């Protein structure tokens, strides 16, 4: 397992009774990256995060976080000492005030950043003496982000950080994360099914579906490699089986055939020209298309 990786999982599996939530998940999250962990609801994102933070134990496979084994209890405590976490539900202790939960959390982190605490208290306009059960979801999200960022962590794990937020609050939270990461040397691993969020801040992604990573890599690299080739024929598009490496999906609709390639378009077009299309057009693939094609493949 590489020291250059903040997170690495190898064939990670998790079974809950009859349900196999993870089915051999392989992830490589480079240190210093902003890693978007994409997937539909129920794809296994939250389960993977729980395994990384020692909240659940794997059925099989390995997970290492910051070079430490995630399923070893003592190492897991060290991992959490060096990790900030925002839970999907932004659930905090309802019976505490904002000030109380900040003091409570700070007590566990010797490297607690008072400067960041003050900055985010001010920029998020959090009411110090208000009880958490009276805060709106947006306010609780901001407080969760404050508690995660101020830990002075090397790794930030965010599970659906903008889930349930209005666009303005969502933008505010994302901007806080991006600003923070640009000023600190840290890795961000965040799960989402909001593609716009991932597109906005991630430099690496993995798309998970049915418990396995179906696409992973640097976002720019994926954008460079993936191409959609649209072929138009005079009659009904022929039922072609492409032999070109990297063809991940072919769709036919009337006279139009669309092929998605993970290895550029040149070889695919060369092979397709033998079937006599009247036109061939190469289109870039958006993250949304990549996501939809990837998860559709695995259904």
């Amino acid at each position: 397992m590489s020291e250059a990786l903040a997170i690495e999982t190898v064939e990670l599996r998790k079974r809950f009774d009859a349900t196999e939530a993870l089915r051999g998940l392989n992830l490589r999250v480079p240190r210093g990256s902003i890693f978007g962990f994409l997937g539909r609801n129920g794809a296994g994102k939250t389960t993977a995060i729980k395994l990384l933070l020692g909240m659940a134990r794997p059925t099989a496979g390995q997970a290492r976080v910051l070079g430490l084994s995630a399923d070893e209890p003592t190492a897991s405590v060290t991992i959490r000492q060096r990790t900030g976490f925002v839970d999907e539900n932004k659930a905090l202790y309802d019976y505490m005030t904002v000030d109380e939960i900040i003091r409570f959390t700070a007590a566990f982190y010797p490297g607690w950043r008072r400067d960041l605490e003050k900055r985010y208290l001010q920029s998020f306009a959090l009411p110090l003496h208000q009880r958490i059960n009276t805060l709106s979801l947006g306010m609780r999200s901001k407080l969760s982000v404050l508690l995660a960022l101020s830990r002075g962590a090397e790794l930030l794990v965010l599970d659906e950080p903008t889930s349930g937020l209005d666009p303005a609050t969502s933008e505010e939270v994302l901007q806080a994360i991006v600003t923070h990461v640009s000023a600190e040397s840290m890795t961000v691993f965040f799960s989402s099914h909001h593609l716009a969020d991932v597109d906005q801040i991630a430099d690496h992604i993995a798309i998970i579906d049915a418990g396995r990573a179906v696409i992973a890599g640097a976002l720019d690299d994926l954008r460079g490699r993936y191409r959609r080739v649209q072929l138009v024929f005079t009659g009904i598009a022929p039922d072609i089986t492409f032999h070109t490496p990297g063809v991940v999906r072919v769709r036919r609709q009337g006279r139009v055939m669309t092929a998605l390639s993970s290895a550029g378009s040149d070889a695919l077009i060369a092979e397709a020209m033998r079937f006599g299309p009247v036109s061939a057009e190469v289109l870039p693939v958006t993250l949304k298309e990549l996501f939809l094609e990837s998860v559709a493949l695995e259904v």
Partner: protein
Amino acid sequence: MLWHKAWLETRGRFLGGLALSLIVGFGVIYDFRATQRLLPLVRNMDPAALDTSGPLGAAIKEGLAAQQSFRGFVWWQWYRQNLTYLVVVFGALLGAGGLLVKSGGATLFTLSLPVSRARLMTTRAAVGLAELLALAVVPSLLIAVLAPSIGQTYSVGDVLAHGVCMFVVGSVFFSLAALLSTDYVDGWRPVLIACIVAAVLGMLEYIPAIGRFGLFHVMNGESYYRSARLPWIGLIVSAGITAALLRTAAVNLAHRDF
């Protein structure tokens, strides 16, 4: 800070239990006078009217004998009945909850902190047991303090001796609820089951052959009341049961997926 968190999560139950126990304890003191006025009426009754041959009659006879003195009255009314019930119920209430229940959806936030589950469990149990100790002792101290107001005395030594018995056996029901709370995500089933177990054990003590070995005989400190000897074997067995239950709860919690 985990101590503070555990206190915040249990203080409602603890303070509620303490308030109720103080009220009941206060009532016990002033009930003594009323009882003293009634006892001569019972003594003057026709002996044939009180059948003491069965278990109920024997219990009535024993109660009447015990309540002739203030010390006996306190033991019979307070330690043998009221405080026993209160410590069992509030012991179960204080033991229930923990990581799965009171934190509610914030369980993941707790688990994201750099502390082991064993430490979470230990802190929670220590705070709960400290509260249970206070419930077992403080209301009885009120009796010792207020006894002179009705012309009686009650020794602090008796309060402490009975308090130890109450606390050690009450810890069994506390730890049973704590163990059940590592399996049930709701707060009420561990309390209910612990109370049902207590009720069944209490009823079994009416069986003469096994009654004298019962936990409640240890809990009410009968041997201390009658012969000034603490029930050491019962206390050690109870403490052992508590330790085993809490250990099992910690193992359960350590292996649980969230």
